[in-house]
């Protein structure tokens, strides 16, 4: 009986441990993303493209330009998106309009940091945008990290969209 009570009591205890940290530097992320040194490019936005990004991020986005790294047809984007209270820094590598890598560079909150593990991140590999400009793959969530998962999905969508815009800008007459 005491063991049963203990088991029930354990069900009510929420394990909570510090998940804050810098898990990958920007330099390491860029070095991993490209086999040769990329150039830092600038993506200038107009009203239409900014509205598309606002829809992807589901919030207001005011900047006129976004900087990114590029070599050939591969681009790397480092974006910040708030999960619950603080921004999560996420790096996304895109090639041929598909995500080839996604990394949580820095996580600043005390819970929800499970999004940095490969088991979650690997779901984004090969994800692209469908006709409705949303991710083509279903991403399984993580219990207790709902807002962080949502933030990562928004960043992935925004990165794919930015890559699309950057490529369109380059190929348009």
């Amino acid at each position, binding site marked *: 009986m005491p063991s049963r009570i203990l088991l029930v009591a354990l*069900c009510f205890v929420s394990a909570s441990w510090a998940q804050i940290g810098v898990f990958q530097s*920007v330099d390491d992320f860029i070095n991993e993303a490209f086999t040769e040194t990329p150039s*830092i490019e600038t993506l200038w936005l107009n009203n239409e493209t900014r509205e598309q990004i606002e829809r992807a991020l589901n919030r*207001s986005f005011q900047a*006129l*330009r*976004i900087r990114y790294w590029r070599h050939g047809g591969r681009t790397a984007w480092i974006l910040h998106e*708030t999960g619950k*209270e603080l921004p999560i*820094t996420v790096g996304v590598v895109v090639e041929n309009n598909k995500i080839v890598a996604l990394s949580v560079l820095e996580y600043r909150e005390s819970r929800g940091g499970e999004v940095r593990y490969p088991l979650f991140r690997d779901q984004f590999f090969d994800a692209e945008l469908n006709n409705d400009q949303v991710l083509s793959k279903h991403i399984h969530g993580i219990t207790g990290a709902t807002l962080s998962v949502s933030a990562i999905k928004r960043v992935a969508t925004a990165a794919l969209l930015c890559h699309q815009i950057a490529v369109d800008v380059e190929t348009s007459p």
Partner: protein
Amino acid sequence: MRSAGSVRGPLLRKFHRIVGMTASIFLLWICVSGILLNHTSFLELARKPLPAFLTAWIYPDAIIRESNVHTSIGIFRQHGQTISLDDVVIGLCADSLTGAAEYGGELWIACSHQLHIFTLDGTLVESQDSTLGLPAPVEKVGLCGQVLCVRSGIVDHQFLAHSGIWEHAPEGIQPEELAIRKQPAISSEFGSTATWERLILEAHSGRIAGKTGESFINLASVFALLLTISGVWISLRQS
């Protein structure tokens, strides 16, 4: 003499009734909040900030900071996350305001860990941070010759506009050279973390009341399970 079965029946129904009454309020809230969270995109809950009084009450950690930067052209004031120049709002800082400069036809507002760049008519152009090599904390911003510089510790860094990166500066930083005209008020939205989505999600999970709230919701879930079991049991007995 009553049989065990005839005693258990009323007891079971009483147990079912008590558990149901006790858990009903929690279960009702979980159901309503769950439905709202299922349609958070449609209802745009993540885009709707809470009213100021709710934010101040529930999320006081939307920290109110106040600091001033006195310059030759005026006083930059920081209140909370809002930055204003002579009472005209010009931008936001997530942490401490450290200075400002005009460079390349743009207005550069320095916070400890960010630089916000505005056009001279008040449109946000870009926000920079350590992602592009901005050193932190930024203690001072000004000009190194013709190039924008920031000081972090004892080291000066200059911004190379053509390459978009920060490098060590060869010359010393000059005192703030601010040739900034007063800008019209910027009514841009930077978003808020105190949104309805966050409030409903935290209330749904009980986290809004900390560990105690989480335990209450866990208990309500257990009650729902007991309600289900007792309900099925009563049904089977009646059939």
